[in-house]
């Protein structure tokens, strides 16, 4: 018998239909992938399953029994745990305190049994071969990827029968993502049901037993994973055939140097990085996570203190803060790593977010022209096909991929021609990914210069003209032409640099 059976599930938010007719069924012991475009309703679906929101109509059966959780606790009581992105964690608590939050082991006096908590934490981390995590570390000191891992541990701590991973790999670097895939198989082998959401087709192929595809809030298909091809899946997801994900790489770099960096250093994470990014070039930045990529991007954007010399379009500049980076066409714009913490005002509208960096441009004699603003916003929403009810919808209520599009649009509106893209496709669906890569190439052809980091290595390999591999805060190697491959990137990231 199926463990979960869902029929005709519906959910509306005001005028916005998030789910119109979702059906779903999955068995214990399988990895079940949930696929669909940005805004298709995947997160809404799992929020309903995990008791975070309530559905309007339709039915959910667990073990054949009616299931309608009033809150996440009720869902947990039925053995369902969801791993959302970093949000449910508390920055001031330690890793272990977060993992066991509200379920702390107690002593006879009902105080928290710290020894037991530590023991259980270590046992859990050991059992599932977690990447190294110090249980006593304060959460706020962790990177986004580490927080994601803690979130996973927190889900597993409840020993759930059904565990839901919503784009959990999207915040993880290659090695950790691979670990998560193994973990997923292990969990299924233990007889649990894993519902797995990801926009990375290769991952889905690697682990899913079955898959269900959503489009516009309704289920369009369910398959045995080995009975269907990638192309069919993608076509069912986006409603059309996708010829290719990666655009043709036609070199457009000129001899003009857009961004010249000499000996830039910041703390212990970035030491003496040098490179030149040319007009029309897409320069990839790869390497294992935590080797200075984040610091490099933030330092160039003025968001982190750094020393060293920087030239923009041949002119020496000193950039002390992002405002000095964002100086119109000759400036630098950034798509930051942490979209909710650095990129978006979640409680403000799509419109306000898009125009925040350029709001001065809409003023005449000091007064804003709402009409001019609205026109540009509409153009950008249409151009990137941001799925929002109206531009007044709050950014925090958009689907994850659409939030990422808003950040992308906000960056394009600055008109800066040097773009720093830190994982710009995180959480973006395949169709849109292809469009973003095409857009990057088009911008490069127009004379933009793009520094591009991706936690998904194939993206670097297929989109960048050159790839700089970072190790210990330095450039360990710069790969060009035929030398750009996943193996070469990994080799440079891990081994000593070979003499060039």
């Amino acid at each position, binding site marked *: 018998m199926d463990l979960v059976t869902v029929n005709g599930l519906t959910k509306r938010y005001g005028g916005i239909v998030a789910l119109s007719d979702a059906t779903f069924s999955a068995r214990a012991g399988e990895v079940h992938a949930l696929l669909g475009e940005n805004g298709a309703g995947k*997160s809404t679906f799992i929020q309903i399953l995990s008791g975070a929101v309530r559905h309007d109509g339709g039915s959910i059966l667990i073990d054949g029994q009616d299931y309608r959780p009033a809150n996440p606790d009720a869902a947990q009581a039925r053995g369902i745990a969801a791993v959302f992105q970093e949000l449910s964690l508390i920055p001031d608590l330690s890793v272990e305190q977060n993992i066991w939050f509200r379920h702390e082991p107690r002593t006879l006096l009902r105080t928290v049994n710290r020894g037991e908590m530590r023991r259980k934490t270590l046992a859990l981390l050991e059992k599932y071969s977690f990447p190294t995590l110090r249980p006593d570390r304060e959460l706020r000191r962790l990177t986004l990827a580490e927080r994601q891992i803690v979130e996973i541990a927190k889900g597993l701590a409840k020993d759930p029968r059904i565990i839901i991973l919503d784009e959990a790999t999207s915040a993880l670097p290659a090695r950790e993502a691979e670990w998560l895939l193994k973990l997923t198989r292990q969990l299924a082998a233990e007889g649990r049901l894993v519902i797995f959401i990801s926009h990375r087709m290769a991952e889905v192929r690697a682990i899913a037993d079955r898959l269900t595809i959503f489009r516009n809030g309704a289920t369009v298909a369910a398959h045995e994973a080995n009975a269907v091809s990638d192309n069919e899946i993608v076509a069912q997801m986006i409603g059309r055939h996708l010829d290719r994900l990666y655009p043709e790489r036609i070199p457009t770099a000129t001899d003009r140097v857009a961004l010249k960096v000499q000996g830039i250093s910041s703390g212990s994470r970035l030491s003496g990085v040098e490179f030149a990014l040319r007009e029309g070039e897409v320069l990839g930045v790869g390497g294992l996570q935590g080797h200075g990529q984040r610091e490099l991007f933030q330092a160039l954007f003025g968001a982190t203190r750094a020393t060293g010399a920087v030239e923009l379009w041949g002119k020496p500049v000193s950039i002390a803060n992002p405002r000095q980076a964002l100086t119109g066409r000759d400036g630098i714009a950034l798509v930051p790593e942490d979209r909710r913490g650095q990129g978006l005002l979640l409680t*403000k509208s799509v419109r306000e977010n898009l125009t925040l960096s350029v709001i001065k441009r809409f003023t005449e004699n000091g007064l804003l022209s709402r009409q001019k603003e609205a026109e540009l916003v509409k153009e950008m929403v249409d151009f990137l096909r941001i799925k929002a009810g109206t531009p007044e919808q709050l950014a925090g209520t958009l689907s994850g991929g659409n939030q990422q599009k808003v950040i992308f649009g906000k960056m394009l509106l600055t008109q800066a021609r040097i773009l720093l893209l830190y994982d710009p496709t995180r959480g973006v669906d395949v169709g849109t990914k292809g469009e973003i890569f095409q857009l990057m190439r088009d911008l490069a052809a127009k004379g933009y210069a793009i520094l591009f980091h991706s936690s998904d290595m194939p993206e670097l390999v297929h989109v960048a003209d050159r790839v700089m591999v970072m190790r210990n805060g330095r450039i360990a190697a710069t790969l060009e032409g035929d030398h750009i491959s996943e193996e070469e990137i990994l080799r440079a990231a891990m081994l000593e640099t070979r003499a060039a």
Partner: protein
Amino acid sequence: MSAFLARNRLIVLAYAGMVVLLLVTALFSPGFLSVSNMRSTVVLAAFVGIVALGQTFVIIGGGIDLSVPWVLNSAAIIMALLCGGQDVPLVWVTPLLLAGGAFIGLINGVGVARFGVPPIIMTLATNVILQGLILVLTGGSPTPSAPALIQFLSVGRIGGFPVIALIWLALTLVATLLLSKAAFGRHLYALGTSATVAEFSGVPTARTTILTYVASGLTAAFAGMLLTGYSGQAYLGMGDAYLFTSIAAVAIGGASILGGSGHYLGTVAGAMVLTILTGLLPALNLSSGALLIVYGAVILLTVSIGSEAFAGLGGRLRRN
């Protein structure tokens, strides 16, 4: 229009509360809605409203200004001392005091934005220092009476309208333009919503923060001058009540005390609500102690209605 209502639900709520309160008050004391009584209510509300103008900016930006009582009081006393009851010195005393208020705001702002001092500590400190300075300056002796021109501004009328109401109206217009129609307003809301996101978006966060405290220093000093005209004299402690009322007016007006939301138009309603309430409570024939209790409870209630609505909004923002 309905989109406007939805976006500004809390402000609309504040005005609805004001109307309800007016009607209730009229029930208990039938003379309350008379022209002369409404006039004096508006005058009293104007003082709260003017102090709360700067406070609104500060709070939207994610801070709080606890130095308003003694900025107000200092301006009042220094004006009375320097003018000695004469109008002529106002020519230089007015700019001096406004600059002084702005300067205190500058110190607060720089302390908060550049040196990272928590707003509560920073502004509490300037408040106490000013208090000490004024005590040293006056030695506790009474000051001369307010210049006639200032008295006219605070209790006089033009064509039946209280002058100060007209001043308040003009300031409301300016504040609304700044918040709704200027880049400054966008920067301010962004700053109060998330300082990090604002910084990453190129918002001049330090400058914006400093400006809010400067505005608050300015409006507190200005209110101090006007209030001297209203009471005829400056005295120690005349600003004390405005610490609570300026913050409560902002909160009742629908702003989140955590920053990022609210509008001066809401604060205007908040100032009216507070003032009507002080008019209503005596009509209930309660002892002054009981009055304070009711006053506090009503404010607590109003503000928590607002913040609950806010919390509900936050809850709907989803994890993805």
